[in-house]
């Protein structure tokens, strides 16, 4: 729990910080002839650190796998990690540093849409390549970004369709609560378009937004109870709040005694990590929707899970060794898919690597063979609906038959 080693290390380094300028020169500049660099842009401090920080280590782990297998095109890959400190402009700055100073051949980074938007011009203008491991609002298609995760039309709508089916409880009334920014708003807009196509009228849904970091959900949950008991059919909550609002929302849900059997919640950004501080026995049955769930059974998944727990304990990292979340797997997939593209292109040069994208596949730990087409830089993946279990994890309730083709621009938006 208390990571003494790291603290000592930190304070030791603190003392030696005056030496920082001395190793400036050695770290900057192009790599040795036998190595090539990739960069990480995940915050290990600030508001996003809780979920984002571990992705740095995932990339390191995946790169170690590549190197153990002889590297890429015979070169050893080196990972350069920076800390954008949850400060959006700093993502751009660090991205620029990774591309221009460190000559990184690919970047793996960003969690929030705004951080991606911030790095976007940097990679576009400097011939960079960014692998983005999060699901997001879609409506963007940059030639320089590989979208490892799903846009809403290919992940959220299948989940909604399930919940509106008889098996899913014939949901017909929807309370949409989200953080006030583009991802939740886009998703809800797509949802509303979808509702309209299904003949669901405006009286049957309610939409509300909260500021970032909002945690006083008492009023909203009172309102949800009221909404749920009104006539018109089975209600569900579509939850698109993010970050620390998620556990706060669940805490109040538990507190007001609302069970999945009363009003089910479809949490679109809910991860195992969000359940870490909660007593999940009262949350059992609530749902989330991702392209990977940890409980899926297959050889690749067993492999990555054991590799991660070994990596965590071997390096004394402050992350849970047995939690594997979708963005981690997406980042992991990203590293491997990049390596495949490089091997195929026969060079590390970005334009050539981009040319090689079409038809790259990878056996993802989710159990699907995920693939890229030359049409856009989206990756086709399977979809899972998970249901919260007693052990702060998700059981798989439903999964798609194949990998739906990602739709960057939703017809409903």
């Amino acid at each position: 729990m208390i990571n003494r080693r790291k603290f000592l290390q930190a304070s030791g380094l603190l003392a030696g910080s005056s030496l920082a300028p001395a190793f400036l020169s050695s770290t900057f500049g192009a790599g040795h002839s036998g190595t090539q660099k990739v960069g990480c842009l995940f915050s290990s401090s600030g508001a996003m650190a809780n979920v984002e920080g571990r992705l740095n280590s995932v990339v390191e782990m995946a790169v170690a796998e590549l190197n153990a297998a002889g590297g890429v095109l015979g070169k050893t890959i080196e990972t350069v990690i920076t800390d954008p400190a949850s400060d959006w402009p700093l993502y751009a700055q660090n991205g620029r540093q990774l591309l221009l100073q460190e000559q990184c051949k690919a970047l793996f980074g960003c969690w929030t849409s705004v951080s991606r938007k911030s790095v976007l011009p940097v990679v576009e203008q400097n011939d960079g390549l960014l692998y983005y491991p999060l699901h997001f609002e879609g409506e963007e298609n940059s030639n320089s970004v590989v979208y490892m995760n799903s846009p809403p039309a290919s992940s959220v709508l299948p989940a909604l369709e399930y919940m509106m089916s008889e098996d899913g409880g014939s949901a017909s009334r929807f309370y949409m609560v989200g953080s006030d920014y583009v991802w939740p708003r886009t998703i809800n807009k797509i949802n509303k378009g979808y509702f309209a196509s299904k003949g669901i009228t405006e009286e049957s849904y309610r939409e509300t937004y909260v500021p970032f970091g909002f945690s006083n959900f008492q009023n909203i949950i009172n309102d949800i109870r009221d909404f749920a008991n009104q006539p018109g059919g089975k209600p569900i909550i579509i939850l698109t709040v993010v970050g620390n609002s998620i556990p706060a929302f669940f805490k109040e849900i538990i507190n007001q005694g609302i069970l999945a059997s009363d009003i089910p919640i479809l949490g679109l950004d809910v991860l195992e990590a969000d359940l870490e501080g909660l007593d999940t026995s009262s949350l059992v049955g609530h749902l989330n929707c991702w392209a990977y769930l940890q409980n899926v059974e297959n050889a690749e998944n067993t492999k990555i899970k054991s590799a991660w727990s070994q990596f965590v304990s071997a390096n004394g990292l402050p992350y849970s060794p047995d939690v594997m979340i979708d963005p981690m797997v997406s980042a992991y997939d990203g590293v491997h898919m990049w390596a495949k593209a490089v091997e195929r292109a026969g060079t590390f040069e970005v334009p050539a690597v981009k040319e090689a994208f079409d038809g790259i596949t990878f056996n993802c730990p989710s159990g699907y063979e995920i693939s890229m087409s030359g049409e856009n830089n989206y990756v086709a993946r399977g979809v899972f609906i998970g249901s919260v279990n007693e052990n702060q994890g998700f059981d798989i309730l439903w999964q798609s038959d194949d990998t739906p083709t990602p739709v960057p621009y939703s017809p409903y938006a």
Partner: protein
Amino acid sequence: MTFLRTYLLSVLLAIAGSVSADGQDRQDTSAIVGGLCSSKPTQMNQALNALGSFTVESSDPLVIENNARWALWIISALTKKQLVCSPTGSGFVKGEDELRDAVTRELTKVDENVKLKAPFLHLPVRPTAEIIAATTEMILASVTNDAVSDKSLESLDKKPEQVNSRQLSYLLKQSNLPGRQVKQLELVEAYQLLRSEDLTDYSTALAVLRENASRKSLTALIEIQSSLSPEASGSKVEMTSNAINAIETELQIGQFLSVLYSGLSYSSILFLAAIGLAIVFGLMGVINLAQGEFIMIGAYITFVIQELLASFAYGLMPFYLLISIPFVFVLTGGIGAAIEYSVIRHLYTRPLMTLLATWGVSIFLVNAVRVLFGTQNLEFYVPHYLVGGVTLFGDFLVTWNRLATIGFAVLVLLLTWILVNKTRFGVNVRAVTENRNMAGAIGIDTRKVDVLSFALGSGLAGLAGLALSTIYNVNPTMGTNFIVDAFMVVVLGGVGSIWGTLLAALLVGIVNVAIEPVYGAVAAKVIVMTLIIVVIQFRPEGLFSLKVRK
């Protein structure tokens, strides 16, 4: 004694069960299990209802008890995914290294090639499973004279229309049920009686629903009202609309009380976050931007104490919050004193510089905690007495944890007031606030007063962290969420005034929560901020500033 009785009974039951569970019964039960194994929500729900009816098929209490136990066992296995099915539809219950037949409950084995799979617990199945389990538990309790868990009672309340009518009529006939259960059952019955043609039944139902006014009962009544044919007797129409009006009024009162209560609880949180700041800023003039971090540290100390209790004194766990109070206060206060001694004391003559220094301190503390504990949200055990609440008026739910926070805030207010106004220490603090040199001249150790007041302010922030630990997310950056709000409250209230802080917290909290449902949470915050800025223009020293000749 009771244990012996239960034991004997269960032996008897085992025999009786094996006797009765043959022939027709066995067919019924395997059909039920088969239905549960179908993985199809409709069939599973039918099976669950059949399971409910099955428990009250016989009038023999022993049989009822046996069947009820079996039903509960099956349902619990189903929800815990211990019920596994073969492709042919026979069910088994997985235990630790054992497998029992779902119908006979006997140990059994299956061929390794047969793939056993737990049925999908689709969303519509969950409520049925919960409600059947609840009524079955009541039936079992009525036979064995045991108590029924609150949870079961609550689930009856939430989904009255789904209660199995045969189980309900069985239960209503029992005379040994405790009053609270009878009330619940009557409410459930009322929902079902609404469809009755009999006018007396209907009016009884209306009366019960009126007594238990809620959005749910209103919805049920409105549905009935719209289905009433124009030819229906006038009194029925009138009775219904009267009941609807009564319920609507009560709901509105309830809604108003809800907002007030939310406002009050938010105010108490603001107050707790701000009171420490009111001491260090108000009485000492120190702008402490690290105040939020003391809140965070208070929560982390609570966490450490919780973990220690969990390892060394598990029995005390339910009281860990109470036990933590003195530790949190003293330890956070100690850290505060250390910071005062090392940093703040150099800066009393430069208030704007304390702002920067404490900002540095805050960065340091956040990152130190991040390195020591990691960035994830900490898990706090919430004692059972703080979960849930009681519904008072309409849908007005008084949640225990918020009530506890309000109570705690009141307690902190009283203690602070007594400390500042009724003790030697308080007199010294006020003397130093008024005139440092004079206080020093009359023999007050001003350094000691400084350290102690800063420690007090920090300790109070620590207590806020303790109180918030079960409501908010606890992580290294939690403090930053409070600092702006806390400053607003202190400045609005008027520096140096405990009552001002209280009034400002109430004002900000209630106004914020009252605007929220109308314009949304974002606008609420913006409006409240604007109001505060405007108020400061008119009362630059806050609402409760002391008028003195300077």
